[in-house]
């Protein structure tokens, strides 16, 4: 029976993807090619274990919703359903501390309720807790002494927002606190002293045909008619993260908009990733079983130490890893009960070369470790993005030995060979990558070289051609006299 089942599964896998590359993963590992079509690929990460609260000795988690790894390698788990924050070591072997009550500045104790987000500032070692159930953000030191409480701002700017329900929180180097609520105005920004400063990083309203039509209708309608019309508002940002240089990355969980899904914001709030589309799955996945089409919904974003951008898609429970330029590196995970699959992925965090994914229904943290292939790609990408094209050549060739259709490798090799002066090779790899831009760069150099090499022959050829033309013309004139007389 078991053998039959295995055979059936194998057949199914063979039908779905005849070239399944990774053997040890229980799902089809894929990547996207130049034409945005899914192609089989190698796994960059593989799940090694998943850890529950019970295994840690802290009792099962309940709907945990956020993970955070601080500078001292302590892992904070916002255990939302149990109204507590569990702190473990980075290897997830033992519980170091459990926060459920804090001491207020006036000496009284206060319990947290449904904490949804946690952040620890590396400079000040202050905990920032999005205390969702109590509609406040607690700023406390590691001993649980609350330093600051942020509640709904009594500010004219905040008037139109009805509630203050913090979901994610982070603080920048200057101590400014950013709080993601469900507000469409962006993250609420507080100064280090707790004063409300305004909003940060709101999404733009996308110019869909409906929105444009609305604008035209506004021009033609009266004030009264306009006030009755539904306002066009952008979708609220869902989560954010800070990178080493102080840029804030936001992600937006939305099926209705394509723009601004992932943004990289500078301190002024400008989006450096504007105009970048195609985060998450490029084609909506259709499931015949439930007759629904799944659009990607990115619910968490994490910038790892090597500046890769990791996004978590809660629709398909997949992690999409991009390099710092936004080029797709790996897609990992699936919706399943097996190890490496998730049922309701809520948050992700990176720790060195592992990715930790929190599952809000399985109540576990899954540890995904980098494979050899992943290490290679990361090494090559890092070298490539820093401009060491030649040094990246060797790792890129190695990457191709693992996965012969990895497009970034073709691009990388094309760039590396161009630097080395092997223009023909560069053209060949540009063609394999289907990149006309890279081909153009290589072809320009190749043509230059070819013209220089053959300049003498070319000049001679041109001379002969002109001379031959003149002679031929004379010959014709002589022999076709009277042929065409007007």
């Amino acid at each position, binding site marked *: 029976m078991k053998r039959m089942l295995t055979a059936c599964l194998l057949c199914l896998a063979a039908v779905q993807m005849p070239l399944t590359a990774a053997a040890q993963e229980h799902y089809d590992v894929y990547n996207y090619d130049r034409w945005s079509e899914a192609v089989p690929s190698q796994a960059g990460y593989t799940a090694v274990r998943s850890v529950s609260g019970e295994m840690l000795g802290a009792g099962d988690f309940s709907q945990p919703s956020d993970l955070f790894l601080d500078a001292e390698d302590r892992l904070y788990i916002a255990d939302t359903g149990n109204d507590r924050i569990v702190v473990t070591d980075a290897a997830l072997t033992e519980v170091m501390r459990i926060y459920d009550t804090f001491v207020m500045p006036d000496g009284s104790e206060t319990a947290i309720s449904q904490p949804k987000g946690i952040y620890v500032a590396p400079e000040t070692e202050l905990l920032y807790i999005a205390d969702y159930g109590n509609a406040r953000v607690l700023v406390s030191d590691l001993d649980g002494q609350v330093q600051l409480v942020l509640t709904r701002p009594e500010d004219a700017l905040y008037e139109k927002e009805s509630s203050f329900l913090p979901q994610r929180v982070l603080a920048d180097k200057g101590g400014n606190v950013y709080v993601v609520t469900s507000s469409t105005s962006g993250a609420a920004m507080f100064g280090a002293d707790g004063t409300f400063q305004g909003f940060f990083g709101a999404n733009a309203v996308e110019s869909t045909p409906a929105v444009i039509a609305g604008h035209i209708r506004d021009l033609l309608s009266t004030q009264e008619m306009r006030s009755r019309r539904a306002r066009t508002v952008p979708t609220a940002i869902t989560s954010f993260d800070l990178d080493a240089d102080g840029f804030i990355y936001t992600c937006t969980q939305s099926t209705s908009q394509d723009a601004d899904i992932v943004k990289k914001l500078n301190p002024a709030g400008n989006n450096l990733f504007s105009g970048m589309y195609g985060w998450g799955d490029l084609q909506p996945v259709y499931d015949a079983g439930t007759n629904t089409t799944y659009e990607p919904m990115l619910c968490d974003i994490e910038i790892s130490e090597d500046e890769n951008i990791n996004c978590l898609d809660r629709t398909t429970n997949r992690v999409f890893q991009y390099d710092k330029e936004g080029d797709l590196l790996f897609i990992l995970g699936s919706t399943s009960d097996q190890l490496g699959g998730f049922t309701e992925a809520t948050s992700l965090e990176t720790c060195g070369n592992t990715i930790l994914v929190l599952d809000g229904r399985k109540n576990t943290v899954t540890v995904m470790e980098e494979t050899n292939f992943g290490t290679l790609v990361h090494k090559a990408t890092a070298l490539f993005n820093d401009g060491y094209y030649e040094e990246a050549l060797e790792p890129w060739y190695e990457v191709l030995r693992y996965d012969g259709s990895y497009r970034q490798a073709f691009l990388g090799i094309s760039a590396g060979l161009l630097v080395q002066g092997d223009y023909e090779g560069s053209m060949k790899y*540009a*063609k394999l990558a289907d990149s*006309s831009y890279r*081909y*153009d760069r290589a*072809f*320009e150099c190749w043509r230059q070289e070819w013209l220089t090499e053959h300049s003498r022959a070319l000049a001679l050829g041109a001379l002969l051609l002109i001379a031959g033309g003149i002679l031929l013309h004379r010959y014709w004139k002589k022999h076709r006299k009277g042929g*065409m007389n007007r």
Partner: protein
Amino acid sequence: MMELTSGQWVRHVVLHPFEGFEDVRWKKAGSVRIACGILALWFLGAVLYSRMYGFQFRATSDKLFNVIPYLVQTVILFLTWTVGNWAVCTLLDGEGTMRNIFVYSAYALVPYVTSLYAETLLSHILIRDEAIFLTIIHDVGLWWSVLLVISAVKTVHQYSVMRTLFAILLTIAAMLAMLFLMVLVLSLFQQVYVFVYSIYTEVVYRFRV
């Protein structure tokens, strides 16, 4: 006077946009065979233009190739033009026969077809910074042909310029109507086919049971 071979007539027409067609008409020149050749070259050129263009300008996906769209965009489009123009201009007191409309219009396409080949060829030699040359070739070829088409219609029907432009607009409308009807007929036949096929399945099923 004007004893030209068929090939020379093509050259004469292309290089004399304003009176070339009048000469052809007067000498009753113009060959259907050459017109068909131009049409075939156009079709081939369109395929080459979209498939064999220089890689530094355009990466073409080789996964899927279908020749039908190219056929529709060139040969069928041209035949529709011919029939549409004939239908419209017969009502507008035009003097052109179907044969002449076909031949003159095909002759008028020569610059455009040439530009297709020239552009495709040059795109393998030039780089992106020099793309302006390709644009020039394309635009010159296209507008030269447009001019020749106007001249051809004017001559073949012996119209004034304004009447020619009016006739061309009407022809385009007629072409749209024809294409619309063609699509309609196609879908109708498809439904008839489905109907017949389902009856067939039904009958076969009855016999088997």
